[in-house]
Structures are given as structure tokens and as C-alpha cells.
């Protein structure tokens, strides 16, 4: 290499054509233009706000609000402060967002898998759902649920009541027999496949399986005829009211209240979780040592259901249900869910589910077909292939757009203002802004809340993305 630094060899260029100088010039110009724009705006705002007597500080925060909110998670009344109103709105936003995310995920994943199903009916239903709901504005859907479905519901005295369901004996018995015989048949068929060919067990197993199927079919026929048949003898019998009512004032549910000793149920639950984790560890070690698999999911499920149940019974069933009761023109007691909340939750979950379904489909389709073929070649069946090979790779693709959908749902919950659900925008940016006139502060704070949620989630996703990035070859 020849001597002399690069600077010595650079040809002389006019200063204006030097890229570095030009870069500095452009940046200085941009910064100057933007800063002066902001300066002028702030100056104008100060002048205008003084002229119109608009407050420029947060003094209103501790003043009495004077308005009531019909759904609050913290204690709040008309004598509470604007600051408390802010928290009421924020908590309501978070409430509907969290529940909405859960529902949207469940519905969305179901639909996404259905869209990839080999079954034509499932495929077309999911496709129809996605294409319809994705192409209609969310606001229209919210208004539809609220104004066309929930509002015309009957008054409390004529509420739609969900009856409790009881299984009648002949129907229930045949149903149990069907399920039992079917399970037996499947089990025996599996057992037969696992035997070495030619052994006595392998010869007998098909006979057992066939017997199981015959019993199952006979029981099914009997059960269906009982279901269709005699009044009172059907499979399902309507019992008394279950304490769930739907009317134009909202959805009424039994309100559970826990007595002393309910803590034991939590202890049981914690014990079940610990035991499940321990069992999973043990199963993994055992598989590594001997290659034998253990039914981890089944055992965990049994633990998670049984232990809290035992604790519950042992503690003397410390749960009382407060059922809603019709008194006069309205219901007393129970847990009342406002129609606004129901409409918002329905709209948000169903709308976002359509988008999540598409992300799930794209994620599963992004896994190369060779992956599942290789898994089949290794001898994995369809279910383990999906669980161990396809889904882990698909999830890596699905997760970033999925969190994006969760953020969209959270931001879209601000449409609550159109149907009067008291979320952050409706309470704070609507009522509080109107009453105090502190436009700049209120809007800035509201935006800051959403921005914090978005950026925090995006930051977590970036960390996760770095953690799970493909190892480049």
C-alpha cells in the first residue's frame, strides 16, 4: 500500500460539493426549520391560550370533578377529583383491552387454524368471517352491536334468562356410554397397533376395537333417539334459572364472593402449579435418560383441577354466589356488566380476531413444507409434528405481528367514546377536557399514556426478537 493517509489523496472539491459539509448543512437546516416551527407554534399557543383564558398547568388535577362515571374499578364519585377520573378511565381502558386480547387470541387462533383445515366447511366459514369483518370499519361494527343488537333487548322484566342445563338420565347415560365405548375402541386399536405382529394380543385387539365401536354406535343411536324423543326424557333438560340475564341494561351474572378459607384454594392451586412443573422436569429427565415419554399435559391438567378442588371442599366450600334477583323494575344484586362494555368487548375481540387469524395463517404457511415432511419421515405423527416442529417455528413469525394486533386493539379501544363506554378517551379527553378546557395538557397526557404502552411493548418485542433471531449461517 502506498503511504499517505486518505485525506492526502482526496481531490480538492468545492466546499458546497463536499458530502460531509452538505450533510451538516442539510441537518442544520432541518433542525433550524423544525425548531423555529415548534417555537412559533408554542408562542402562538401561549398567546392564544392567554387570550382565551385556557389554563396552562395541571392545577385542575386535584379539583373536584362533579361528574359521575357508570363503571369504575376504583372508588369514584362526583366529589372525586379530575385526577381520580383519569385513573378510572385508564383502568377501564386496560380492563377492556386485557379481556379483549384474551378473547381475540382464542377466536383468532381457532379461525386461523380453521382457515388451513382440510375440511371445506371449516375453511370457508373462517374465510367468510375474516373477509367480512376485516373489510367493515370497526366503528360500524361497534355501533351495530350497541344500537342494533344490545339496545333493542327487552327491559329487565322481560330479560333473556339463560336457564341452567341438566342432563336427563337416559340421554346422559347413553352419552356417557357412547363416549366411554368410543374411547375404549380407540384405546384398543392403539394398543393393537403397538403389539408385535402375530402375537395373541394383536389378534384379539381388532375384535375388541370392533366391539367398542359397535357399542358406541348403538349408544349413540339410543342417545340421539332419546334426545329427539320423549318430552322430559331428552338429553338436555332445562333446569331453573342459572342467574345469567341479558337485557337492555346489560348483562347480569352471579357475583361470587369468597368466605374465609378461600385462601386454601389458592394454596392448592400454587401447589398444583409447583407439582406440575416438578413433574414436567422429572418427565424431561426421564425422557433424556430412557427415551420414554410421560403424559405431562394430562397429569398437569388433573393436578390443576383436582388439587384446588380438594382444597375447596376441605375448606368447607367457602364460596357464596350472589344471584341477581328481579325486584320491581330492575335487578338487585349480582354482577352487572354494562351494555357499553359488552358491545365494545364484542366488537374489539371479533374484529381483531379476524386479523389475528390472518397472522396465524401466514405464520403457519411460512414454515417450509420440508419441515413437516422431514418430521413425518422421522416417524412423528400429525399432532407431534404440529406441536414440536411447525408451531415453534410459526410462533416466531406470528409473535411480532400478534403483539402489533394487541396494540391495535388497545388503541382501538378508544372508539369507546362513540358508544359511551367510560375509557380514558371518553372520560379524560372527553368530559375532563370539556369541563376544564385544559386541551393541551389533557391531550398530551392521554397521548403519553398510549405512547408508553406502545413503546414499552415494542421494546419488549425488540428484546425478544434479538433473543430468538435466526442463527445466520
Amino acid at each position, binding site marked *: 500500500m502506498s503511504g499517505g493517509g486518505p485525506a492526502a489523496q482526496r481531490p480538492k472539491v468545492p466546499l458546497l460539493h463536499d458530502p460531509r459539509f452538505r450533510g451538516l448543512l442539510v441537518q442544520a437546516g432541518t433542525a433550524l426549520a423544525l425548531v423555529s416551527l415548534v417555537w412559533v407554534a408554542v408562542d402562538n399557543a401561549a398567546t*392564544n391560550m392567554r387570550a382565551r383564558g385556557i389554563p396552562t398547568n395541571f392545577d385542575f388535577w386535584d379539583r373536584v370533578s362533579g361528574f359521575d362515571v357508570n363503571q369504575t374499578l376504583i372508588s369514584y364519585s362526583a366529589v372525586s377529583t379530575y385526577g381520580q377520573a383519569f385513573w378510572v378511565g385508564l383502568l377501564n381502558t386496560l380492563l377492556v383491552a386485557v379481556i379483549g386480547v384474551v378473547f381475540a387470541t382464542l377466536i383468532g387462533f381457532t379461525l386461523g387454524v380453521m382457515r388451513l383445515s382440510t375440511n371445506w366447511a371449516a375453511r370457508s366459514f373462517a374465510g367468510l368471517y375474516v373477509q367480512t369483518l376485516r*373489510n367493515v370499519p370497526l366503528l360500524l361494527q361497534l355501533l351495530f352491536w350497541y344500537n342494533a343488537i344490545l339496545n333493542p333487548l327487552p327491559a329487565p322484566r322481560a330479560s333473556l334468562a339463560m336457564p341452567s342445563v341438566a342432563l336427563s338420565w337416559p340421554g346422559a347415560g347413553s352419552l356417557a356410554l357412547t363416549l366411554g365405548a368410543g374411547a375404549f375402541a380407540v384405546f384398543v386399536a392403539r394398543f393393537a397397533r403397538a403389539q408385535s405382529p402375530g402375537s395373541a394380543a394383536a389378534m384379539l385387539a381388532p375384535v375388541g376395537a370392533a366391539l367398542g365401536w359397535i357399542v358406541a354406535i348403538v349408544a349413540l343411536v339410543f342417545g340421539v333417539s332419546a334426545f329427539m324423543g320423549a318430552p322430559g326424557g331428552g338429553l338436555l333438560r332445562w333446569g331453573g334459572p342459572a342467574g345469567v340475564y341479558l337485557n337492555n341494561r346489560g348483562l347480569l351474572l352471579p357475583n361470587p364472593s369468597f368466605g374465609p378459607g378461600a385462601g386454601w384454594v389458592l394454596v392448592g392451586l400454587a401447589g398444583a402449579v409447583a407439582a406440575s412443573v416438578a413433574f414436567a422436569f422429572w418427565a424431561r429427565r426421564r425422557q433424556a435418560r430412557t427415551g420414554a415419554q410421560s403424559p405431562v399435559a394430562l397429569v398437569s391438567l388433573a393436578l390443576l383441577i383436582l388439587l384446588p378442588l380438594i382444597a375447596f371442599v376441605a375448606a368447607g366450600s367457602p364460596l357464596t354466589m350472589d344471584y341477581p334477583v328481579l325486584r320491581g323494575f330492575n335487578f338487585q344484586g349480582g354482577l352487572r356488566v354494562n351494555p357499553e362494555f359488552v358491545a365494545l368487548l364484542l366488537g374489539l375481540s371479533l374484529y381483531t380476531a379476524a386479523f389475528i387469524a390472518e397472522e396465524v395463517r401466514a405464520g403457519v404457511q411460512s414454515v417450509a413444507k420440508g419441515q413437516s415432511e422431514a418430521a413425518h419421515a422421522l416417524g412423528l405423527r400429525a399432532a407431534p409434528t404440529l406441536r414440536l416442529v411447525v408451531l415453534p417455528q410459526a410462533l416466531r413469525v406470528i409473535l411480532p405481528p400478534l403483539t402489533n394486533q394487541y396494540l391495535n386493539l388497545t388503541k382501538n379501544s378508544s372508539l369507546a367514546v362513540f358508544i359511551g363506554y367510560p375509557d380514558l378517551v371518553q372520560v379524560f379527553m372527553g368530559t375532563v377536557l370539556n369541563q376544564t378546557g385544559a386541551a393541551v395538557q389533557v391531550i398530551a397526557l392521554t397521548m403519553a399514556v398510549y405512547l408508553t404502552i406502545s413503546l414499552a411493548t415494542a421494546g419488549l418485542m425488540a428484546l425478544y426478537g434479538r433473543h430468538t433471531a435466526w442463527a445466520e449461517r
Partner: protein
Amino acid sequence: MEQKTTLAYLRTQPSPVLPPPVFAGGALQWVRANMLAGPGSALFTLAGLLFVVWVTPGLVRYLFIDAVWSSPDGAACRAPGAGACWSFIARKLDFFLYASYPREMVWRVNLCMAVGAVLAVWLLWPGAARKGLGALLFFVIYPVACLLALHGSDALGLPTAPTDLWGGIFLSLIVATVGIVMSLPGGVLLALGRRSRLPIVRFFATVFIEFVRGVPFITVLFMANTMLPLFVPASWSPDRLLRPLIGVSLFASAYMAEIVRAGLQAVPKGQTEGAQALGLGYWRMMGLIILPQALTVVIPGIVGIFIGLFKDTTLVAVVGISDFLRTVETARLDPAWAGPTISTTGYIFAAAFYWIFCFGMSRYSLMMERRLSAGRKR
């Protein structure tokens, strides 16, 4: 083991040709594979059929057989058992289209919509001639001319129609068109800014994009509506329709920027290096080499933004703009038409309107994607 050696087997005759399986090919095979692949699949098909049988008659009766097709007011629609009240839509169609726009000036709206439709078809028609001219007309001249014509001006001898009177479908289309027209240049500039080598430019672009994308559209509209008048001298007092239009433009630009950025990232680095080796400057390199490739890659994303934008135009109602959905809301509450089926009828009509536009756009983007990728396939 010695078993291995005894297993040797060699076929000396070709195996006989077997008849094809009964179900191979044809409709029966399709039915078997797609509807009756197993007990679960058969159950699902049965459930689907039952669902269709259960839903269809009621739906057909509500939408067509029991529907009220013509009546001067809501009396016929209030009759028990009446279905959808289509006469409500027919009678209110004028209001849905133009809201309170002065009736004697409606020809301007119709003219603008017709010209817009012609230009849109010109631009969207694959292989149409002189698309550059079409783009210039649609993106620059048409919006200005149309807004001027709709508003009217004394200098041109057209009486003015204040924006308070604007509303209905044509206003929804205006908001969407302004958003689309402004978001493309805005988004490209912001995306270039975010990928710039200059740290200050990059900083401002990134902050703007992340800020707008992190907050709900409603808050942007609120900000444009209440804070914009504060930020300018009191004498300016921006028009009440202009404020949400600015909000829509900012919002759409930020989302467009992220799409364009994805396209820029997809262009191989060799293209930049090649352009630089040819001695092209920054703007010529971007305009002639990089952006055409980048924008082509992300056409589906761009159309996705347009669809989202079109749906989001419904939210301008929050700042008191009477868009299409708001006119439906207003008409729905007209006491002359009050009835149990009016709300549902109005919402079905509105849903059909939005669905046709959005679904059409998504189908168009799919078609374009296929056409463009056909050339790139190896």
C-alpha cells in the same frame, strides 16, 4: 443375524397393473378429501350444513321476502314481522350521498366524483397509456381543482358552499382521497428521512413516525381539532374540515412511511452501489433506481394502508364531521322512520358500502401482486 440373508427377494415379472382407486380424481374424490376426510371432518361438514340450513331461510326472508321495498315513511316498516326497510335507504339515499350540501350545487359533487372515478380507473387499469400524466392529474391537479370547485369561490363566479354543509359519502371519499394523496409523498419523505445517514434528520423522522403510530387515531384527530387552532395565529382559525384532513394526512403518512421503509430495505444494496457508481446523486438515485423497486415490492402493504385509511375515515365523526356513517346515524334516528328494523337496515347498507370498497381494493392488490411477481418468477 442370519435372517437378513434369507430375506433376499427379486421380482422377475413386472407387477400387474392395478385399476385406479374408485375415488381418484373427480368430484367424489374432492368431496371425500375436503368434506369427509375423517370422523371429525364429517362432523364439521354436518355442522356447517346445519348452520347454513338454519340461517339461510331467516336471512333471505329478512333481506328480501319480508323486506319493505317502497313506502313513503316508516309505517310499513313498523308492521310486525317486517324485514329490512329498504325504502328507508331509497328515501334517504340523497342525504347519505350529499348530507346538507346545497341541492342546487350538487352537480359539482357529481362532476368531481365522476372525474375522480375516471382518473382512478385510468391509474388502476393495468397497462393503461400515459400513467405519468394520470398520476399528475390525480395527485396534484384533481384534489386542488375539486376542493376549489366544491367549496366554490367568488372569483370563479361559483357561489360558496361552506364546509359545515358538506357530508355523506362524498365527504368520506374526500377524506380518504386526501389521506391517500398526502400519505404517499409524506410517507416516502419520512421513510427516506428515517433511513438517512444524517443523524438529525433520522432522529426527527423516527420520533414523528413512532409518535403517530403509538397513539390512537382519535387522539390525533382531537389534537388536530383542538390544538391546531392554538398553534397558529388566532386570525387564521383553520377551517373545521381542514383540521381533521391535516390529522388524517399526518396519520396516514406515518403508517405509509413504515411500509415504504420495508420496501427500501428489500432493495438489494447492489442497486444503491450501482447507482452511485454511475455517478447519480441522492435524489436521482432514489427517484430513478431505488424507489421504483421499493414501492413495487410493497404494493400490497400500500393497499393495506389505503384500506385501513378508508375504514378509519369513519372516525372523523368524533370531531363533528358528518361523514357517511354519521349520516346513517342521523337518518336512523329520524322519528318519521323510527322502527325496530331501521338501525339494522342502515348498518347493513353502510357495511355493504365499506365492504365493497375495501374488498375490491384487496382483490385489486392481489391481482397486481400476481401480475408483478409473474415477471420476477424464475
